[in-house]
C-alpha cells in the first residue's frame, strides 16, 4: 500500500511480465541454519507487556509536543487518558445492531471446473534472498509467490466489481466468514471462518490477530515501514472470543473497510521465537500459510530452484471464490539469469509460460507466424487490465533556473512527442497517459487530456519565455544567451531509447534534451536529492481506491517552510530532499485542496477534489504524462488453460489470481502431435473486455 518509486527492477518485471525479475544474489551458504542453532526463546512475556502498555498516539498530539505547543507533562497526562491499543472483551460487548455482510452475493471469477494437478514450470531471474515474509531482503520479486498472491486475507477486494458502494469497494470473504462496519465508531467487526486453519493444522483465531498487530509493531522484525503503518493507521484491536475481533481506525475514509479486511494474519505459534535475532533465525523458515501453496524445506535448492507445493486438504479449496484456483499441484521456479536463455527453454518446452510484455518478444522473437504458434502448440495471450497506472512521464524540477518559468514547462509538454514513442517504439501497444492518476476509475479525471506534440505551440510558449533566437545548432536561445537545454535523467536502462527519441523530436521545437542514463539506484538517489532537471521515472501504485496527492504534490514535501505566515513564498526556503515531490511543486491552492482531500470521508467530494487537483497540476505543466501499458502478455504451451474471459480486471500479472490449470491429457496429446507433425487451431487470445475505450 506504500507509494514507492518504480525501480528499474519493478520496471523490468512490468515489462517482461512474470519472467524478468529482481536483481539479487543467490542465498549465501552461510545462511544455512537449522532452528537448533539458535537458543530457545519465547516472546510471550514481551507480547503481554506490550498488550498492557501500547497506545496509539494521535498524530495531532505528537505534532503539538514536537512543536512545543504543549509540555511533556501535559503530553504524558493526555497519553495516560488514551485507551490501550489491545483490548480484551467478551462477546456481550459486540453491539447487537451491527449489519453483518459476507460478500457471498458477488460473482465468482474462477472456473469451478478447472482441473487440479500437474506441475507448472516457470523461471525466475534470481533466487530469493530469504523466505521470511518481513524484514531485510524480504521485499524481493519472489514475495508474491510466498505471500501476496497466495496467502489469504480476511477478505479481498473483488477483482472485477470495482464499483464503489456505501462501504467502499466490494470484498469477497477469505479467512473471515463475515464482517460488519460500524462507521460511527470507526470500527470493523470481523468473524473468522470456523474452518480456517494454518497449513500445519492449527486453527486461525483472534489471538493470531492480536499477535499480528504486535508482530508488525515490534522492532525485532527490522521493518520500519510496517512498524509505522501498524502503529499509526490503526487505533485499536479488540478480541471478543476465539473467532471474533474488531479493528478500529483513526478515521473513516471511503476505503476504511479495506484497511481492516485486507490484513494478512500471522500464526502466533510459529513466531513464538521472535526476538532481536529474527532476521537470521527465520531466514529460511517457511511460515505455515493460510493459503493454497507452501514451500517444503527440501524444495529450496539455493541458487537453483524453489518449488511451491499445494497444501494438502487446504481448508478453503471448495469455498466460493477460492475453488477453481491454485490448480497445479506444484509450481517449480528455476533460476535462469538470462532472458534470452529462458525464452529458448520455453520454446523447447522446458518452461510452460513466458512473459511477453516486451514488443521485441511479442512481435519479433515469437511472431504470430512462428511455426509453433501456427501449429497451435504455443498460445499467445494478451490480457488487458484496468488498474492504477505507474506514472511514467517527465518530472520537471520547478526549482531549477528556467524550469521555474511556466511557459517553458508548458513548452516542454508540447515539445515531447510521446505519441511517436508509443507508435514507433511501443508499436502502438501502449496508450498516452493523461493525468497523474490514470486508472483510478471514477477518481481519474474524466476529460483531461495530456498536451499533444505541437511544434508551433511549443515554440510559441518558448517565445513567451524569451527564447526567440535560433542558435546555429537549431537550439533556441534567449537575450541573455542562455540555451534552451535541459537534462533528462533516467534509471531505466531498458527504456533508454525513449529519451533518445524525445530528444530528436524536441530539437524540432528548438529544445535540447541531454540524456543521462544512470544505474537505477544512482538515478533514484539523484531524484531524491532533487538534483535533477527533468526526471524520466514512474511511481508504482497499488490498486487502491483513490490516488495519493500529499506525497507527490504537497508543499510540505517540496520545501522546508515553503510559505511565510502571510501566504507568500518564503524567500529563504530550502528544497526538501528525500520526498516524492519530484517537481518541487509548492502551491497554496493545491495544498488547501490536498488537505481537504485527505480529511474527507466522502468519496464524491474526494472525486471532485481529485479532478480539481489534476486540473491545477495540468495547468502548471510540471509533469509531462508519458504512457500507460494497458495490458500484460504471455505465451503458454497449449496445455496451460485459462478460464473463459479471464475476468480479473485489477490483476497485474497472469499468475496473480492463479486461475489457470494444467491439462495433462492435452500435454500428452500436444507432445505426440508435435512428433507426428499434427497441428491444432492457432491460439492467439485477446482478453480485451477491460480495454479502455
Amino acid at each position, binding site marked *: 500500500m506504500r507509494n514507492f518509486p518504480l525501480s528499474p527492477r519493478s520496471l523490468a518485471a512490468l515489462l517482461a511480465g512474470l519472467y524478468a525479475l529482481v536483481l539479487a544474489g543467490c542465498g549465501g551458504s552461510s545462511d544455512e541454519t537449522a532452528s537448533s542453532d539458535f537458543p530457545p526463546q519465547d516472546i510471550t512475556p514481551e507480547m503481554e507487556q506490550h498488550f498492557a502498555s501500547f497506545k496509539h498516539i494521535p498524530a495531532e498530539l505528537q505534532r503539538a509536543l514536537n512543536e512545543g505547543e504543549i509540555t511533556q507533562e501535559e503530553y504524558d497526562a493526555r497519553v495516560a487518558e488514551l485507551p490501550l491499543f489491545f483490548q480484551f472483551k467478551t462477546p456481550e460487548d459486540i453491539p447487537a445492531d451491527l449489519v453483518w455482510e459476507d460478500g457471498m452475493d458477488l460473482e465468482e471469477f474462477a472456473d469451478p471446473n478447472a482441473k487440479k494437478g500437474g506441475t507448472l514450470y516457470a523461471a525466475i531471474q534470481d533466487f530469493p534472498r530469504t523466505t521470511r515474509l518481513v524484514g531485510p531482503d524480504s521485499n524481493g520479486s519472489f514475495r508474491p509467490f510466498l505471500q501476496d498472491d497466495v496467502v489469504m486475507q480476511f477478505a479481498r477486494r473483488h477483482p472485477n466489481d470495482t464499483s464503489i458502494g456505501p462501504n467502499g469497494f466490494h470484498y469477497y470473504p477469505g479467512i473471515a466468514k463475515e464482517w460488519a462496519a460500524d462507521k460511527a465508531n470507526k470500527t470493523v467487526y470481523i468473524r473468522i471462518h470456523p474452518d480456517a486453519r494454518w497449513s500445519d493444522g492449527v486453527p486461525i483465531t483472534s489471538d493470531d490477530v492480536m499477535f499480528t498487530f504486535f508482530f508488525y509493531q515490534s522492532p525485532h522484525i527490522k521493518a520500519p515501514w510496517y512498524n509505522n503503518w501498524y502503529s499509526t493507521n490503526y487505533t485499536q484491536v479488540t478480541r471478543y472470543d476465539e473467532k471474533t475481533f474488531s479493528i478500529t481506525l483513526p478515521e473513516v475514509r471511503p476505503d476504511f473497510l479495506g484497511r481492516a479486511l485486507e490484513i494478512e494474519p500471522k500464526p502466533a505459534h510459529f513466531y513464538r521465537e521472535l526476538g532481536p535475532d529474527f532476521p537470521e533465525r527465520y531466514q529460511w523458515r517457511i511460515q505455515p500459510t493460510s493459503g493454497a501453496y507452501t514451500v517444503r524445506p527440501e524444495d529450496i535448492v539455493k541458487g537453483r530452484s524453489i518449488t511451491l507445493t499445494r497444501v494438502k486438504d487446504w481448508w478453503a479449496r471448495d469455498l466460493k471464490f477460492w475453488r477453481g484456483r491454485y490448480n497445479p499441484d506444484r509450481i517449480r521456479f528455476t533460476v535462469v539469469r538470462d532472458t534470452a536463455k529462458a525464452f529458448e527453454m520455453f520454446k523447447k518446452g522446458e518452461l510452460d509460460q513466458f512473459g511477453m510484455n516486451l514488443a521485441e518478444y511479442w512481435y519479433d522473437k515469437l511472431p504470430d507466424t512462428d511455426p509453433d504458434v501456427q501449429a497451435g502448440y504455443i498460445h499467445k495471450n494478451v490480457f488487458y487490465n484496468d488498474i492504477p497506472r505507474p506514472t511514467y512521464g517527465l518530472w520537471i524540477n520547478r526549482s531549477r533556473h528556467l524550469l521555474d518559468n511556466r511557459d517553458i514547462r508548458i513548452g516542454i509538454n508540447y515539445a515531447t512527442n510521446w505519441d511517436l514513442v508509443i507508435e*514507433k517504439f511501443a508499436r502502438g501497444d501502449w496508450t498516452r497517459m493523461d493525468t497523474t492518476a490514470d486508472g483510478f476509475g471514477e477518481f481519474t479525471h474524466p476529460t483531461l487530456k495530456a498536451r499533444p506534440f505541437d511544434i508551433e505551440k511549443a515554440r510559441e510558449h518558448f517565445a513567451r519565455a524569451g527564447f526567440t533566437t*535560433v542558435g*546555429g545548432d*537549431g537550439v533556441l536561445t534567449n537575450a541573455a544567451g542562455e540555451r534552451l537545454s535541459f537534462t533528462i535523467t533516467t534509471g531505466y536502462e531498458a527504456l533508454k531509447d525513449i529519451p533518445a527519441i524525445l530528444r530528436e523530436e524536441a530539437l524540432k521545437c*528548438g529544445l535540447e534534451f*541531454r540524456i543521462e542514463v*544512470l544505474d537505477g539506484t544512482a538515478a533514484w538517489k539523484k531524484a531524491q536529492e532533487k538534483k535533477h532537471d527533468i526526471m524520466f521515472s514512474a511511481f508504482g501504485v497499488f490498486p487502491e481506491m483513490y490516488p495519493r496527492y500529499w506525497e507527490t504534490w504537497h508543499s510540505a514535501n517540496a520545501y522546508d517552510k515553503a510559505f511565510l505566515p502571510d501566504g507568500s513564498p518564503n524567500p529563504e526556503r530550502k528544497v526538501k530532499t528525500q520526498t516524492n515531490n519530484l517537481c518541487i511543486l509548492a502551491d497554496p491552492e493545491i495544498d488547501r485542496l490536498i488537505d481537504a482531500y485527505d480529511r474527507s470521508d466522502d468519496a464524491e467530494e474526494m472525486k471532485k477534489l481529485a479532478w480539481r487537483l489534476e486540473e491545477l497540476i495540468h495547468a502548471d505543466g510540471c509533469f509531462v504524462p508519458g504512457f500507460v501499458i494497458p495490458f500484460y502478455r504471455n505465451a503458454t504451451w497449449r496445455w496451460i488453460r485459462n478460464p473463459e474471459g479471464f475476468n480479473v480486471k485489477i490483476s497485474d500479472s497472469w499468475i496473480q489470481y492463479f486461475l489457470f490449470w494444467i491439462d495433462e491429457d492435452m500435454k500428452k496429446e500436444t507432445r505426440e502431435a508435435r512428433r507426428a507433425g499434427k497441428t491444432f487451431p492457432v491460439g492467439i487470445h485477446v482478453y480485451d473486455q477491460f480495454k479502455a475505450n
Partner: protein
Amino acid sequence: MRLNPLTAKKLRRFRSIRRGYFSFLLLCGLSLISLLGELLVNSRAIVVRYEGKWYFPTYGDIIPGTTFGFDYSYETNYRDLRDRFRQEGGDNWLLMPPIAFNPYENTPYEGVFKPAPPSWLGGPAGHLLGTDTTGRDIFARLFYGFRVAIFFALAFTVLTYLVGITIGCLMGFFGGKVDLFGQRLIEIWSNIPFLYTVIIIFSVIPATFTVPVRIFILLVILVLFSWTGMTYYMRTATYREKARDYTAAAIVLGAGTGRIIFNHILPNTISTIVTFIPFTVAAAITSITALDFLGFGLPPPTPSLGELLKQGTQTLTTAPWIVSSAFAALVFILTLVTFVGEAVREAFDPKKFTTYE
C-alpha cells in the same frame, strides 16, 4: 629532416614488411577519411542548388526547412528535399553524401523503430548495413564509432606513454628512495579496482557536461589506471642504460641530468617501448568497446562499437546483421592494428637485425 641512420634503417625495414606496412597505410587512410566523415556519412546534403543560390549545409549552422520552401522551421530533412526536387524536376538539385544518414536519427521500418535488414537483403533503401534496434543506420554508427574509438585510442596511447615514460624513467634514473617509494605507490595504485572506479565516477559526474567532456573524463580515468604498466619497462630499461659506459662517459664529461636523459638514455630505451604502441592502441580499442558493452563507456547516444555489439547479442536471432556488422568491423580494425604491431616489432627487434636484407 635527417634521421638517425639506425632509425632510417628501422623504417626501411618496416616498409619492407608488406602486410604491416599496408595495414598501416590503410589504417591511416581510414582515420583521415573518418575526419571528413561529415561529407561522406551524414543526413545533411553536401551542396544544395536552390532558386539560383548555393548552399553548403555540411558544416555550420542548421538551415531551417522554411529556407527551401518547407513549412517547418526546424532543420531541413535533405532526403525529403532530394525527393521533392526529383519530383518537381526543374533546376534545383542537391548532392547527398554516399550514406545519407547521420548516426543519431531514428528511421522507422515498417512503421516502427526496429531493426531493418541491410538494403541488399531486402531492407529499406540506403541502409547499407541495415539499422539497429531503434532504427539508426548501422553503417553511420560504425563509421562514427570507429572515428571515436581510433582517436580515443591514439590519445590514450600518447597520454599513457607520456606519463608512463616520465615516471618510469625518473624512477630508473634516480633510483634509491624515489624508486622505492615510487614502486610502492604504483603497487598501491594498481590495486584499485578499475571497473568499480569507472562505475562510481560515472554515477557522480553531472550530465550537464557535454558529451566530449564526458569522453575526455573517461579518457583520463583510463589513462590513470593504465600508465603503471609502462613504468616497469621504462624503469628497468633506464637502469640498464644508466649503468652503461656511455652514460658514465657523459656524466664524466659533465653533461647535465636533462641532457643525459633526453639525449642518451631515452633514444636508447625507446625502441623497446615503440613496439608496444600498436598493442596499446588495440588494447584501448578493446577496452573502450568492452566498457561500452557493459554500459559504462561513452555516454549515450554516442555511436560506439561496444553498444552495437551489446544490441547485437540481444537480437542474435531476430537481427543478426547488427552483431555481424559490429563484430566484423571490430575484427577488421583490430587485425589491422595487430598487423602493424607485428611489423613494428620485427622492424625494431635487434635480434633479427642480421637476418633481414
